């Protein structure tokens, strides 16, 4: 770190989390209620807390930060609440409806549901205007661009007071001329209106994906632009040394000047930093395969990193909108502490996806909730401390938890309350384990090769059971689990993805000129962007990957490739890596069949030095002082209560070893260590949980 501090601000829906890292000093965590109408008020409140804690004026803290980093849900919230701007779409005549047809598909799980609504449309059909002019798959112009169509559409947009224009033409990825000309006309005739083109936002093959991605970007960018301007100004006025960096869904930081034109790159900004944080926490243990699991009140977020590399998702549905640009792969399930246990139409127990939320919340909150939730189950099992006080106001009422479980689960199923509570716990664990399968087994990874990283306030009570379900041997629980994403932001790098398309058959004799040209072009653009941002060449990394498939397949496998000029020898290595990846994913490969390369990606990273992890004093005997009595808990469905020792996490020092069954209570989270597991606190402030046999 070049200065004394680095600040991470993760503005979530309910709370804004702050991590203030200090050079060779502690990691300080703060929280303030979010202020969605103007995010700077929440930030000001958080900075005030820091000023009091450090006894230092706010401006002095900010001026002593080498970087101020902001993760934001501005774009996400605008997309969820449909509060983006009015968008007009210029598209190829005949293809105005691709974003409404959505490939003619209805989502699984709702096929026979007569009340499931169609996906929301960000551009109504009357604002999707047809433009004649046609490029073919080889980039040739079949029909010249009709500029009168564009001018007529511009008049419609003007009359309708459109604030943003998306331009997406068929095969613009092979020939950008028509989109460029349309952009010129829009800029000329509609000054002040935001405009973006498909060939810039998502320059890869697939018209529906490209149009949808471009529309989402046009819908959100003006909102993001206003936000960025406000935040930039706020920090500039406090005397910040460097421009604020914003967290992107790709797991890297970006300048506000980039963000305001590419809001689609920020729609999952929040959880995207989790895998970086997980890798950083695992580093002292020599672990570089991690799965992070983050259970909050209503949802459960999962990410995976393998061999130190985060995983990206491309071309998938996010909130029912098709998004092409790479985003950190986050599996989000409706499985949180507030998830409701209920008996379904067939008479079977299910947990979630409906949640009791914060209000009325779980039955045990005593705020009028009558449904049995996961939190009620955990309280009934003894994992949570009865009568514990949450957030200063909510007292956990075990009788109410048991009552809700009895009425909604135990009685209908004719089983005991204990068995029902354990069942709720088991089922939510199964749901979470299935979510982890989606991000691991379905992507060709074996979860047993990974450590689970526990994040979020509620995860600790499930983590050892989850590990058992998946056969995972190692679990890491950082003391900062509840602010993992804000922590991930302060240890992240600046990162830009560049995309291109060059469909071709790949074999030893293939002409590699075009590939080499495209890679060189993407890389030099990225290096320039980072150089302008003040990065030295030695701190810049380029990473390349290609998407490949067997001739005739439609879905591609992503294969990482080495940098530098591609040669016949490197083609052999790429092909071998592709066959191996296909085999791992789908149980077979076809080495004798021709292979096609479709898309290219080049990621440029500007390395930012990292703050160090905490360093706890060593005292294995600290467990004596930390021991805080016993509590009866249930660990199976036998109904046999086990008197379980409880420890205060804030009194434990490095080297402490706790053998399960046990529970560790940290200020914002509880860790349940099931029988057969042990926990050891590492000097970096992380508990390592492993299997243990007498």
């Amino acid at each position: 770190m070049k200065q004394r501090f680095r600040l991470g601000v993760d503005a979530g829906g309910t709370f804004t989390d702050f991590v203030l890292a200090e050079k060779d000093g502690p990691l300080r965590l703060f929280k303030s209620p979010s202020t969605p109408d103007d995010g700077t008020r929440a930030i000001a409140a958080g900075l005030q807390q820091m000023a009091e804690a450090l006894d230092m004026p706010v401006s002095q803290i900010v001026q002593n930060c080498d970087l101020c980093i902001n993760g934001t849900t501005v774009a996400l919230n605008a997309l969820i609440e449909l509060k983006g701007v009015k968008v007009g779409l210029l598209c190829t005549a005949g293809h105005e409806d691709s974003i409404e047809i959505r490939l003619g598909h209805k989502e699984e799980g709702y096929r026979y549901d007569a009340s499931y609504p169609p996906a929301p449309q960000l551009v109504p059909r009357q604002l999707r205007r047809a433009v004649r002019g046609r490029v073919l798959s080889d980039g040739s112009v079949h029909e010249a661009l009709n500029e009168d169509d564009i001018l007529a559409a511009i008049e419609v947009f003007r009359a309708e007071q459109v604030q943003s224009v998306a331009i997406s033409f068929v095969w613009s990825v092979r020939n950008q001329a028509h989109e460029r000309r349309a952009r010129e006309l829009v800029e000329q005739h509609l000054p002040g209106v935001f405009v973006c083109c498909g060939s810039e936002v998502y320059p890869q093959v697939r018209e529906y994906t490209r149009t949808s991605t471009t529309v989402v970007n046009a819908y959100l960018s003006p909102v993001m632009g206003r936000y960025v301007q406000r935040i930039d100004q706020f920090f500039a006025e406090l005397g910040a040394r460097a421009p604020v960096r914003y967290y992107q869904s790709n797991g890297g930081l970006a300048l506000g000047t980039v963000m305001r034109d590419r809001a689609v790159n920020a729609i999952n900004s929040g959880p995207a930093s989790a895998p970086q944080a997980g890798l950083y926490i695992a580093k002292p243990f020599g672990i570089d395969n991690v799965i992070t699991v983050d259970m909050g009140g209503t949802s459960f977020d999962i990410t995976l990193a393998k061999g130190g590399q985060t995983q990206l998702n491309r071309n998938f549905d996010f909130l029912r909108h098709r998004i092409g640009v790479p985003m950190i792969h986050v599996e989000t399930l409706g499985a949180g502490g507030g998830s409701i246990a209920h008996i379904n139409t067939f008479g079977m127990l299910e947990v979630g996806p409906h949640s009791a939320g914060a209000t009325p919340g779980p039955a045990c909150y005593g705020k009028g909730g009558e449904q049995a939730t996961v939190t009620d189950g955990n309280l009934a099992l003894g994992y949570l401390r009865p009568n514990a006080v949450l957030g200063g106001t909510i007292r956990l009422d075990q009788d109410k938890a048991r009552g809700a479980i009895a009425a909604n689960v135990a009685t209908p199923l004719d089983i005991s309350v204990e068995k029902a509570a354990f069942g709720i716990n088991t089922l939510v664990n199964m749901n979470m384990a299935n979510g982890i399968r989606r991000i691991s087994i379905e992507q060709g990874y074996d979860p047993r090769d990974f450590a689970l990283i526990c994040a979020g306030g509620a995860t600790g009570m499930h983590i050892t059971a989850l590990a058992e379900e998946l056969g995972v041997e190692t679990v890491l629980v950082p003391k900062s689990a509840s602010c993992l994403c804000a922590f991930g932001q302060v240890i992240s790098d600046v990162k830009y993805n560049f995309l291109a398309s060059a469909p071709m058959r790949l074999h030893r004799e293939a002409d590699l000129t075009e590939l080499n040209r495209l890679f060189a072009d993407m890389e030099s653009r990225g290096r320039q962007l980072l150089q302008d941002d003040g990065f030295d060449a030695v701190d810049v990394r380029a990473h390349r990957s290609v998407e490949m498939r067997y001739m005739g397949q439609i879905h591609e496998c992503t294969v990482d490739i080495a940098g530098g000029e591609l040669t016949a020898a490197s083609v052999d290595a790429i092909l071998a890596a592709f066959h191996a990846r296909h085999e791992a994913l789908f149980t077979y490969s076809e080495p004798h069949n021709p292979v096609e390369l479709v898309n290219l990606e080049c990621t440029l990273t500007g390395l930012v030095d990292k703050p160090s992890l905490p360093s706890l004093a060593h005292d294995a005997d600290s467990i004596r002082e930390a021991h805080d009595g016993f509590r009866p808990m249930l660990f199976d469905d036998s109904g046999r209560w086990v008197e379980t020792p409880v420890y205060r996490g804030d009194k434990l020092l490095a080297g402490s070893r706790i053998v399960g069954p046990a529970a560790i209570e940290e200020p914002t989270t509880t860790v349940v260590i099931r029988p057969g597991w042990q926990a050891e606190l590492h000097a970096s402030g992380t508990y390592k949980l492993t299997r243990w046999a007498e």
Partner: protein
Amino acid sequence: MTQAIHTAGRVDPITLAVIRGALETTQREMTLTLEKTGRSSVFNLAHDYSNALFDHLPEMILQGQDIPIHLGSLIPAMKAVAGFFGDDIHEGDVIYHNDPAYQGSHILDCCMYKPVFYKGELVFWTVCKGHLTDIGGPVPAGYNPAAKEIYAEGLRIPPVKLWDQGRRRDDVVNLLLSNMRARRDQEGDLNAQFGACRVGERNLIALLDKYGVDTVRAAIAELKDMADRHMRSLIRSIPDGCYHGEAVLEDAGHGLGALTIRATATVKDDTVHIRVDSPPQVPYFINSYAGNSMSGIYLGLMMFAQVPPPYNEGLYRCVSVDLGAKGTLCNAVEPAPHVNCTTTPMETLTDAVRMAFEAAAPERVTASWGHASGINIAGINPATGEQYVTMVLASIISGAGATRYMDGWHACGPLCCFGALSSGDIELLEYAYPIIIHRYGLQEDSGGAGRYRGGSGTVWEVEPIGHEMTIIAFGEGRQIGTMGAAGAVDALPERKLGRLEINKPGEHIVHRQNVITTIQPGERARNVNPGGGGYGQPWQRPAEEVLRDVRNGLVSIDAAATEYGVIFDSCGQHVDAAATAAARQRMNQQGVQA
């Protein structure tokens, strides 16, 4: 206090729920394998495949939410295939089959069955069915309207082992593939099916390792019982009685005139007996063998039941079916030609069953969805000299029916696929085939009129590049419109229909029957699909909703007046409230003239 509803008590309810989740995950991972590895566009773009798990009996224990036409027929097909081999089923075997004589749907739908053994005992079957792009025969892609007998349609595959105790029978695989066009695609799809079956097997063995055969079997029995209890409770809510439905199948080109299919649902307590009566089978490819007809029955039932997933065979235990006399349209026997059966007459049969349930439970049943009227394309790619052939899934995407809650989805049909298809990106299609897709969009005025409007159908317009292209049209919905529900009525039925338009210089031909034709560069084929049926009386639809549809180009100004009684002022911008009120009052008294 709620009454205890878990009574069987054989498996504890928690283990039961966990095993249910594991079965769902297994089926999901099989589907994902097919989607990601399938070779032909029908597989990998269109998702025209389905996966299911069966137990040792063999009864279906988990039906995916894939294509409805596949899944109903799998239930009898699995039993026919297992019965064919009897004791001769061993670990490592893989069986293949498409023959309707053994309860297959149509011969393009090839199905792989892998018995899963555990400690030497047959415990499960993993089953994967998919539509191959070609199955031999005289017409590329298999749709041969000239066929008078099944022998003229393509390769029939009665149950045959492709793997025998772990050894791939290259001779048999070669025999099959040698009879198909675009061999590499078919081989790739066959591999993808094998991958899916193996992924399923891998998961099921892990489940058995964890819980043991006895517990898993008991849980599965209980899951079937639960589904049975639920369906019975729905049937019990219908008053006992005999309910009739009928639907008319248009003459798609056989010259035999319209054919009427009747269904009778007899409800007695918690059971229902469905009887089908259809005309004698015809020498045209629209005959449905028994397996395929079961799909139509089950889909019609599900449009009434609207049960959330997961699905298993227990759902149908209280349903008995009589498909009518052998040798009839819906209970065809050799040598009836049949390749069009998964859409025609299956969708009309579904409508007849749906109508019977509408008579029984008028509020609950949704309007019908647009039937499939699509095209296959074929030709020689001028760039490679290779032959190509494919069913264009985008060309059969029709409108969904409106429901008692909402307008029908646009572009979500056809009825036989119920939203499970995916039509594929137009750039991927243009990259794979030498074609220009000039239009893939929603069709104005195609959605059925109603308080809730039916979803719009689609139009798909194509031109070949540098070669002559063969267009093979199939389906229906080009003469008889989609059925609405609850008082819906179309004043402009003509606009709701599907059709194939061929546009050549100085020539515009509209086909409303099946046809095989060719077009050249500079000429275009434009295939229009029907919209979904409306729900409720159109004049009850709020005028502002009609106005919104007009602004969005989904309903024309004249259709707003004729169908909905919403009258616009002379400049076409605003609703004339007084004229609208008068028109709607007139409609309410007199109805509309269809």
